[in-house]
């Protein structure tokens, strides 16, 4: 068995059911909303005496409209495809023919992870295109410059794509840990959409942002260098390293559990 064949096999699996493009539509729609709303409200006085966010003439705001929105719009779907990529093998018992063809399960999990990273990159790129088109239109409509030469924009854009891809690995780890597809999806989305933000707010309130900034979502946010008020996020490079660390840890968890488990 060759590595290239195995990677192709795992990509074929993803691309031959309808889920990937269903999620891709989700990526496009959610990113369009994210970038449109972010661009529309950047620098607008929220009233009630609160401070306005940076305006569209600042690098922070432009990075948020393009790169930040692309990440936010895509990562949850990247997480979902990672979860289903793993749980689907158990739910539909395709783990059986898969491990018959490749009894060295480590190879399967590594190939599956790489295939999902590739799909994650594709999701990130699509999100980025959507963010540039929709965010750009709103920026122009509001009478600002497109700002494509903004400092740090392209680095943030590239890292947004990387961050989206790395979230598929988190999904694979969760999918290996919880084999029930519905439960795994609920836990994955619940933790990232609900528990993690709450935890982050709690840590912030308890003056423990030093810990909170190491949470996966915070680390990912840091990668796109968004507007920050209190410097509560890691620098972009540290965010990237921390998220890569999570991805590796979840990937390793996937390998470790898959190798041991009985496939019944």
């Amino acid at each position, binding site marked *: *068995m060759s590595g290239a*064949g195995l990677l192709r096999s795992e990509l074929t699996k993803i691309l*031959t059911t309808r889920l990937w493009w269903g999620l891709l539509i989700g990526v496009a729609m959610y990113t369009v909303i994210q970038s449109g709303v972010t661009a529309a409200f950047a620098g607008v006085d929220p009233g009630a005496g609160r401070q306005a966010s940076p305006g569209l003439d600042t690098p922070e705001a432009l990075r948020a409209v393009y790169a930040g929105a692309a990440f936010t719009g895509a990562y949850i779907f990247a997480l979902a495809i990672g979860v289903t990529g793993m749980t689907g093998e158990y739910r*539909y*018992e395709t783990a059986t*023919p898969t491990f018959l063809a*490749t009894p060295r399960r480590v190879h399967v999990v590594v190939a599956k992870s790489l295939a999902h990273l590739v799909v994650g990159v594709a999701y990130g790129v699509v999100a980025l295109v959507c963010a540039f088109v929709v965010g750009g239109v709103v920026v122009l409509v509001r009478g600002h410059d497109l700002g494509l030469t903004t400092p740090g924009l392209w680095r943030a854009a590239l890292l947004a794509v990387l961050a989206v891809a790395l979230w598929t690995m988190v999904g694979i780890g969760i999918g290996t840990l919880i084999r029930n597809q519905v439960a795994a999806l609920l836990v994955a989305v619940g933790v990232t959409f609900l528990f993690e933000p709450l935890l982050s707010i709690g840590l912030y309130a308890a003056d423990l942002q030093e810990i909170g900034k190491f949470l996966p979502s915070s680390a990912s946010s840091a990668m796109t260098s968004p507007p920050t008020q209190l410097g509560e996020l890691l620098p972009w490079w540290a965010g990237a390293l921390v998220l890569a660390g999570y991805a590796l840890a979840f990937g390793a968890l996937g390998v470790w559990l898959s190798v041991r488990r009985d496939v*019944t």
Partner: protein
Amino acid sequence: MRTGLTLEVVGLHKRFGAVQAVDDLSFTVPPGAVTGFLGPNGAGKTTTLRCLLGLVRPTAGHTLVGGKPYRDLDDPLRAVGAALEAASFHPGRSARNHLRFLAQAADLPPSRVEEVLGVVGIAEYADRRVGGFSLGMRQRLGLAQALLGDPAVLVLDEPANGLDPAGIAWLRGFLRALAAEGRTVLISSHVLSEVQQTVDEVVMIARGRLVTQGGLAELEQAQASVRVRSPERDRLAAALRAAEDGTVSEEGTDTVHVRGWSAQAIGHLAHTRGIELHELANEPGDLERLFLQLTQEGPS
């Protein structure tokens, strides 16, 4: 001519929590024959096959394919083709795409996918999603999957399940032809009659243990008996038992079944003792009854 590989199960134990699914099971499956792996539901057949294929880790003992553990095979799909359940498919994926990802993983040429689709007769449904397949079509797709690597060994779990009579007849001929080519064919079933006309060898298990193993013909012969009716049944039975050959079992008020004696020998014995006989008939071996009896009693 495709040379088969010998399958070996050696001292296999598998415990799932409190359940001893397989209990000290040993047998071998020779190449060039169709071997039936028989046992009632829950006897441990599927667990044994999954251990053999490296999917389930034995608690103790080991299994070998051509002298090697499955996980150490260089080219597993070319060595062993297996179809374990009719449900190992993603319902949203087409039959062709299911076979494609397996062919890619095993570095088999894409042309093999088309070949096996044709062999099992589902080429015209190849682009339909498997979710809409009947059980019989899934069985055929499972068989196509097993044949993908043109393997030396074929392992099929309940392959006749869901096939129509024509399908079963076709499968029988197909498996016999593969064994005649020299390949190893192992098929499991919980219905003896389903495989009786297909298999040469039989491995029977119950409650995770071996009940009997051997050639089908020998097992049938060993099961053959003579039915004798006599008004002096008890005297006859005592005379037969005194000779200490074979086994004697009474039925009703005037009948005995005798195994290990020829009808001639019984007739002669009755004649010399002056016992009146009303019937003396050869009964062919009833493997189905043996199967029921052995698997219900369990191993002794």
